[in-house]
């Protein structure tokens, strides 16, 4: 009996150690590498790498792109969730599936589709060129590609949450004479605020970190159309490894902050989130 208990405990320990070893090897070691390489040449090199003009321009562009793409997808996510969660109509399943679609498209294809529309040989390319509007190889194209890859984040967090909350509170407010906007801001928004924040967090992390889609439409013009991930690539390909990792460590820091905030939301407001319940 005791022998089987010991065997059982040994088996458990072996499983746990295997799991920990796997995650260390696949996830934690790469993360440690980022910070180790970033500071390999010391603080001053790090500080210089993240404050030289091209790096600052890339940080600025990344912030601008996220500041446009995230609010657009928030407005869309809230509108889509309102229509889908509060009303019944045919084709709802199709609509939800279409909203999820960008998640299953390769990042490079996500960039490609905008080149096909707005590129030099794209559907609308020649007309745009004639008007002097540049979409591909400019900030506009980067924003479009970012909007596409982050498209589902807010909506897919809000839809199940609002479906679960039902329509009774809103109906009461409307019946008592509140306007639609007033009902939304005083009744719906307080109910979904943590779920919304959760969606925004994930949307923002992806928007700032997107590489493949943005890489296709950006044109890699230093100081102009390079976002942080693209700047990392350029430095790395120029063999400025420490510089590349310095900028990369900022992005890794953003990822860690996002994860911690996400965990905080799940622990504290787990009941008010849709996605967290699944964990």
């Amino acid at each position, binding site marked *: 009996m005791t022998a089987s208990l010991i065997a059982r405990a040994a088996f458990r320990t072996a499983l*746990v150690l295997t799991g920990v070893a796997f995650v260390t090897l696949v996830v934690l070691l*790469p*993360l440690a590498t980022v910070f180790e390489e970033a500071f390999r040449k010391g603080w001053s090199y790090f500080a210089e790498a993240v404050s030289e003009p091209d790096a600052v321009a890339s940080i600025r562009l990344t912030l601008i792109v996220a500041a446009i793409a995230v609010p657009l997808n928030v407005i869309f996510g809230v*509108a889509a969730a*309102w229509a889908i969660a509060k009303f019944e109509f045919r084709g709802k399943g199709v609509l939800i599936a279409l909203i999820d679609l960008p998640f299953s498209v*390769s990042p*490079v294809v996500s960039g490609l589709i905008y080149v096909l529309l707005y590129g030099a040989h794209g559907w609308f390319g020649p007309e745009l060129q004639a008007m002097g509007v540049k979409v591909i190889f400019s900030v506009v194209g980067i924003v479009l590609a970012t909007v596409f890859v982050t498209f589902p984040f807010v909506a897919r967090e809000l839809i199940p949450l609002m479906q679960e909350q039902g329509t009774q509170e809103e109906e009461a407010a409307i019946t008592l004479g509140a306007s639609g906007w007033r*009902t939304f801001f005083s009744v719906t928004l307080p109910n979904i605020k943590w779920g919304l924040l959760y969606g925004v967090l994930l949307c923002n992390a992806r928007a700032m970190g997107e590489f493949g889609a943005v890489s296709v439409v950006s044109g890699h013009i230093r100081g102009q159309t390079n976002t942080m991930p693209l700047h990392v690539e350029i430095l790395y390909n120029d063999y400025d490894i420490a510089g590349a990792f310095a900028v990369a460590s900022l992005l890794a820091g953003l990822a860690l902050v996002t*994860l911690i905030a996400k965990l905080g939301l799940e622990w504290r407001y787990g009941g008010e989130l849709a996605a967290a319940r*699944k964990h």
Partner: protein
Amino acid sequence: MTALTLPRAAPRRHTVLPGFGLTMGFTLFYLSMVVLLPLVALIVRPWELGWDGFIKAVSEPAVYASLRLSFLTALIAAAVNAVFGLLLAWILVRYRFPGRRLLDAAIDLPFALPTAVAGIAFATLYSPRSGWLGQPLKETFDLIVAFTPSGIVIALVFIGLPFVVRSVQPVLEDLDRDQEEAAATLGARSWQTFLRVIMPALLPAWFTGFALAFARAVGEYGSVIFIAGNRPLYSEIAPLKIIQKLESYDYAGASAIGVTMLGASFLILLAINLAQRWVARR
């Protein structure tokens, strides 16, 4: 555009809530502009080559090799994730050990870490000359991971890990322990209980996780491109081929590869759906 794929929408009659027209209208407009129109442009484009041209574009040796490589490495990585993801979900749900929450949180890192950052980290880690892992592997086993297909697999394992764990974990948490106890009381060995009672319940979620990890890995670019080495016919992935075609203004050729990948991920999603329905019906 909006009439393209969506059935006619009509709100439920007896609700007093306003805003259906506005929110639905905006949703359909935005969806059409951002997602549907660009995807239609993708699907239409390759056919300017005609059917023969399409086949020729994707069967060109370098393109075919890249598609094969992307699908094969994605399949291997998803299989690795299926095994270790199941193990991780199991220990996270069933065992209590120090650092469990940290381990749980670490699983989400591949979702949050930008792919390019992961990419250069893997390339550095496995560099045969100076990497923490690459150098000992080279010196002890004469094994080179970076710039070979095995390096691609490692990056794809990283990218796909959360999918399997996060698919299996909630199902395992909700699993009714009564059946397991009944099985044990009736004299089943623990491995028998695991195979006969637990695994059948986990199977659909496990398969979903595997398929999601696979679908994500097929199209992955950022985390792979730095460690792949990108040698034609050997370690060039399909997304890289798309970029090369675009750079030479071969839009139709690029779209042909894109449509092939999109079609494949559509089939995968369809398979997930069918499998889940099949399990639900049993």
